């Protein structure tokens, strides 16, 4: 009772504080309820709980230079596509911070990324069920002109606990032109970062480094429409703590990513190349699973939004891959033959990723292998060539069309036995047409087709061809209705030639969104930024509410 009273007093004083100090509270809330019924045809399981729930509430209070925040999370129990270790309720995320004279101090949880993340990225992605927030102390400091420093010490979150590894990190970035007051048209930004992880380890048979370090340097050069970004990273020996000789790998890891961009009005081009070798940095060296991954090799492929284009997505292989990507954006001018009245936007994209010669670097008392630096002839993991056209025909009609050809090494990317599914080659076509009926009323149709074949004979039956159709009716600003069907008409197994039908209704008002859906989901790989998870097939009703304030 006394405690309650105290809490109440505390809240009241918080309230006063907010009113007096010009402070404010922001936040957002999200609830996702899903029911599961058994559906043997699509191999969907029913949940014992019948209804599963993921929900969270973010609260941030900020006033002048002061900020505090927390997140309440509830998994009762977690949706089937989430790791079942998300279980129960709690406040796993809370922090306080303030800024004074260019020094920003954070105590508690924080998200941080150094450069493009090659050696360190702590982030959250609700869609994937990833949250490796750090818990510790972080300092950010702006030293004079154009120099900024970041440093932190902490442990990373895994589900409702923290992984064992203690991370220390420091990152510096200097804007050369600003620092040295150069009146130059070419701009240079230099950066460097360092990470060290400590884990207490004993091993009676092998020498184990308890402090493992990784470092990276980056350079950004900008001139007019040109932009070059390059980052190079290196990790020292980081063997797991095994007693088996062939599991012990003392090789160092490395990665680089380079991009060159040019753009001007109506035209843009980006060319990229990257390579990663033995560059997986975990928060506990022996653990498997994406919850423990602490670095990020940005994926070299276009993130597709259309369903059939994303059925076979690319997942980055931090242990070893070499890839290139080219993107061209062009807008055909208004008033030309192809441009029409409003102009036509065209995006061409090509990406190709292959393995390293002989696999990733390996070093122990019996083995010593390091792959060639540039060898594009190795086993293909993924390739995608696609062109997207976006055009407004008149005031009421616009369309988006995509045609793509993708090659997907299913055996490798999904960890199957070689020869099970082999390599798939798919040609995909998408037409997305929207028609404005009257003010605020729009109807949109999507038709998609995927034609797929196994490039070599495989022991398992292929899913083969798919068709998909979607109709969506929206009434601005509040309503949307959608119905869609995916049909696996080309499955080699005739009993699996199934329809996956879904109906969704949504209501939006201001910053609140309600959505209710019913239907079947296919088992598949779902990726965000090249980090992927396997989503089990399901059949049931879904309710989601999101709001922010």
């Amino acid at each position, binding site marked *: 009772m006394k405690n309650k009273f105290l809490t109440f007093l505390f809240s009241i004083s918080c309230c006063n504080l907010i009113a007096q100090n010009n402070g404010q509270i922001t936040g957002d809330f999200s609830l996702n309820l899903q029911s599961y019924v058994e559906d043997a045809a699509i191999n969907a399981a029913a949940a014992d709980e019948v209804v599963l729930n993921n929900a969270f509430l973010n609260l*941030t209070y900020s006033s002048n230079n002061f900020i505090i925040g927390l997140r309440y999370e509830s998994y009762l129990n977690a949706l089937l596509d989430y790791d079942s270790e998300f279980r129960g309720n709690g406040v796993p995320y809370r922090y306080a911070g303030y800024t004074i004279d260019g020094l920003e101090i954070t105590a508690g949880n924080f998200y941080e990324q150094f450069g493009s993340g090659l050696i360190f990225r702590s982030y959250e992605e609700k869609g994937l069920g990833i949250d490796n927030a750090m818990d510790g102390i972080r300092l950010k400091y702006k030293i004079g002109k154009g120099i900024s420093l970041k440093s932190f010490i902490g442990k990373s979150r895994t589900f409702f606990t923290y992984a064992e590894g203690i991370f220390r990190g420091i990152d510096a970035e200097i804007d050369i032109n600003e620092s040295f007051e150069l009146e130059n048209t070419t701009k240079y930004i230099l950066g460097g970062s360092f990470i060290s992880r400590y884990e207490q380890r004993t091993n009676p048979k092998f020498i184990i480094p308890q402090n493992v370090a990784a470092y990276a340097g980056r350079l950004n050069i900008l001139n007019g429409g040109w932009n070059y970004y390059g980052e190079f990273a290196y990790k020292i020996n980081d063997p797991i703590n095994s007693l088996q000789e062939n599991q012990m790998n003392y090789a160092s890891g490395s990665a680089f990513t380079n991009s060159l961009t040019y753009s001007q009005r109506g035209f843009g081009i980006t060319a990229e190349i990257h390579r990663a070798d033995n560059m997986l940095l975990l928060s506990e060296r022996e653990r498997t699973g994406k919850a423990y991954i602490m670095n990020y090799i940005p994926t070299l492929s276009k993130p597709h939004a259309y369903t059939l284009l994303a059925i076979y997505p690319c997942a980055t292989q931090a242990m070893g891959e070499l890839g290139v990507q080219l993107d061209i954006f062009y807008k055909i001018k208004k008033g030309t033959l192809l441009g029409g009245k409003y102009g036509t936007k065209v995006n061409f994209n090509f990406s190709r990723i292959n393995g390293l010669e002989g696999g990733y670097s390996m070093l122990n008392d019996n083995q010593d292998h390091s792959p060639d630096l540039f060898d594009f002839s190795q086993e293909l993991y993924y390739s995608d060539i696609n062109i997207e056209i976006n055009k407004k025909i008149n005031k009421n009609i616009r369309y988006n069309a995509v045609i793509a050809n993708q090659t997907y090494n299913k055996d490798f990317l999904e960890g199957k036995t070689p020869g099970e599914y082999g390599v798939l080659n798919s040609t995909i076509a998408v037409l997305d047409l929207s028609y404005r009926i009257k003010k605020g009323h729009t109807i949109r149709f999507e038709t998609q087709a995927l034609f797929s074949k196994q490039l070599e004979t495989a022991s398992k039956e292929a899913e083969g061809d798919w068709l998909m159709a979607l109709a969506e009716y929206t009434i601005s600003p509040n309503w949307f209705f959608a119905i869609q069907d995916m049909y696996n008409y080309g499955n080699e197994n005739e009993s699996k030639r199934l329809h996956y039908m879904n109906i969704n209704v949504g209501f939006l008002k201001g910053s609140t969104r309600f959505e209710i859906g019913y239907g079947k989901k296919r088992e598949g790989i779902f990726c965000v930024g090249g980090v992927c998870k396997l989503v089990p097939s399901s059949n049931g009703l879904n309710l989601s509410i999101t709001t922010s304030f």
Partner: protein
Amino acid sequence: MKKTILFLTSIFFCATLTLAQGKSLPNIDVKTLQGKTINIQDLENDGKPMVISFWATWCKPCKKELNTIAEVYDDWQEETGVKLIAISIDDTRSMSKVAPYVNSSDWDYEVYLDSNSDLKRAMGVSTVPHTFLINGEGKIVWNHKGYIDGDEEELYEQIQHLVTK
């Protein structure tokens, strides 16, 4: 547990109180396409309204919204003086495509990168697109989650409402 609930409820209560006054932008840094760091609180538009729109190169409705507004942006600016600020939440995978996309699309918006999602979190944005309307005093007066065709008209009504008030 009960304590937490009580605490959260009171916070909610306070939040509703403060909501009526209109919120300010948080003290968060973003980057320009030229790699320069800018504090979001330093953005201004001579006392005229600003629209802040969160988007990403991989988000179809976001691009639809911004492309639709781009067609009428000249008129909007002429009539109300509004400025649109597009905050890209692209992470390092697609960050390099922001500038080519923006330039090739003929956008006249101010574009910033929020690649670590710091601003996104601070403004309570859970999904994109999410659009905020800021009045001349720098307060958030209206916001809208998602985009469906025609939503830009409601946004414009809100802008006009601000200007004529």
